[in-house]
C-alpha cells in the first residue's frame, strides 16, 4: 500500500461521500475539513467505517480527536500509524 494509494483513497471517499453536501469539488492535502464543515460527527462515523473496511484497522474512542481527522494528510498519517501498529502486533504474536 503506497502513500499515494492511502491518501487518494481517503480523498476520493471524502469527496464522494462527505464533501458533495457542501458543494466542494476538490480538496487539497492541508485543507481543514472540520473548519470547512465537511467533517461532522456523522462524517467521522462514515470515515471510521471506511477505514475499518478498507484498511482493516480499528479506531478506538480515544483516537476520535480533531487532530487525527482535520486534513487529508492527518488522516493518511493516522491510518499509516494504525496499520503499522497492527502489523507490529501481529509480528509480536508470530514471534
Amino acid at each position, binding site marked *: 500500500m503506497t502513500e499515494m494509494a492511502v491518501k487518494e483513497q481517503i480523498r476520493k471517499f471524502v469527496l464522494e461521500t462527505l*464533501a458533495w*453536501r457542501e*458543494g*466542494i*469539488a*476538490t*480538496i*487539497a492535502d492541508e*485543507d481543514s475539513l*472540520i473548519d*470547512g*464543515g*465537511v*467533517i*461532522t*460527527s*456523522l462524517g*467521522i*462515523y462514515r470515515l*471510521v*467505517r471506511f477505514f475499518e473496511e478498507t484498511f482493516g484497522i480499528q*479506531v478506538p*474512542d480515544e483516537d*476520535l*480527536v*480533531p487532530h487525527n*481527522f482535520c486534513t487529508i494528510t492527518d488522516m493518511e498519517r493516522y491510518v499509516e500509524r494504525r496499520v503499522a501498529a497492527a502489523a507490529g502486533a501481529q509480528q509480536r504474536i508470530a514471534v
Partner: protein
Amino acid sequence: MIGIQCPADAAVSATPAAYRPRHSLLWWNSARECAADLHAIVYHFFLWSISLLPLNLAFKCVSWISKFKQSLRRQDASDLRREIAGALDIGAQEREELIKRTRALAFWDDVEALYYNRLNEASIHRLIWVRGLENLDRALQVGRGAIVCCGHFRGLFGFLVALNLLGYKLNAIRRAPKNAQGPIARWLNRRRTLISTEECKFLWMKPGNLGIVLQAERGLKRNEIVIMLIDARFATEAVEARFLNKAVPLPSGHVVLAHASGAPVLTCSVHSSEHGLPRIAEIGEPYFLKGDVVASVQNSINHMEKQIRKYPADWVWFADRGLWDGSTRDRHTQAQPSRAPVNLTK
C-alpha cells in the same frame, strides 16, 4: 455632582479611545455574571424549597405559582403565540390557555429534576408511567440494540430516569446546553440537570466531540438503547420534512445510524396525565428503516407530530428553544437547487 478623577480613571482616560469600550464591557459582563449568579441562587433555593413537599402537592403548588405569576405580568410569549398560531388550528382563547399550561409545565420540569435522586424503581411510577415497555423488550431481543426517537417533550428527563431505574442501559444523544452566565449559575445548572450515570450516558453534541455517532453505534452493538431527539433544528445533514404545517430542516442522524447498524427504531412521546401527574411515556412498536432517507425522516416525524397535536402543551416549542425562524407561512417544499461545485483550496 463633583467628579473626582482617581488614578485608575486617569489611566483609563489616557488609553486610546478604542480600548475604553472594551474595558467598560468587561465591567458590564462581570456585573451581568454577578446578577445571573444571584438570580440562579435565589431561583434554585426556591425550587429546592418546593421540592421538599410531597410530589403531588409540589405539582399543585407549581401550578398555582405559575398561574399567579402569569396573572401578575404577561411573560413575553409573542414568538410562541405566532408559532402556535401557524401550527395549530385553534382559537385565541384556547391558544392563551395552551401557553399558560406550557409555561407551568416548563416550571415543573425545573422542580421535577430535584426529585430524580430521591426516586427508585418502586416509586418512579408516582412521577411517570412508561407504556410500551414490551415493545422495547421485543426490539432488544433482536440483539442489535434499539434506537428510540423522541422529541423535546416536557418530562423527557423523567422518562430517561425511569428507563434507567427499570434496568435499561441508555445512551442519550444531547446537544450541549448553552452556558449560563455566571460560574455559580453554571455549577447549579449542571448539578440540577446532571442525571448521567454508568447506565445512562449522555453523549454530548459539541464541536470537539467528533465520535458521538460512533459511540452511539458501539452502544447499539452492546445491545443498549440509543435515545435520539429528532426535532432538533438546523442539524448537520438535515433533510427537509413537513412538520406542523411547514417545511422544516430536521436531522437525519437516526436514519443513518439505523441503516448502518440494522437496529430497530421505536418512536416515543411523553405527555401529562389528566391531573398533571404522573406523566405518561408511550413507546411505539419497533420497525426497521429501509430505503429513502427523506421518507424515513418524514415517517418518524409524522408520528411525533400526531402526539404534539394531541398534547400540544407537552412539547417544547421551537420558540421556547430559541429555534423558531419567525415564519408562520409554509415554504413550498422543493428540492434545493444544487450549488455549483467550489474548490475548497480557493
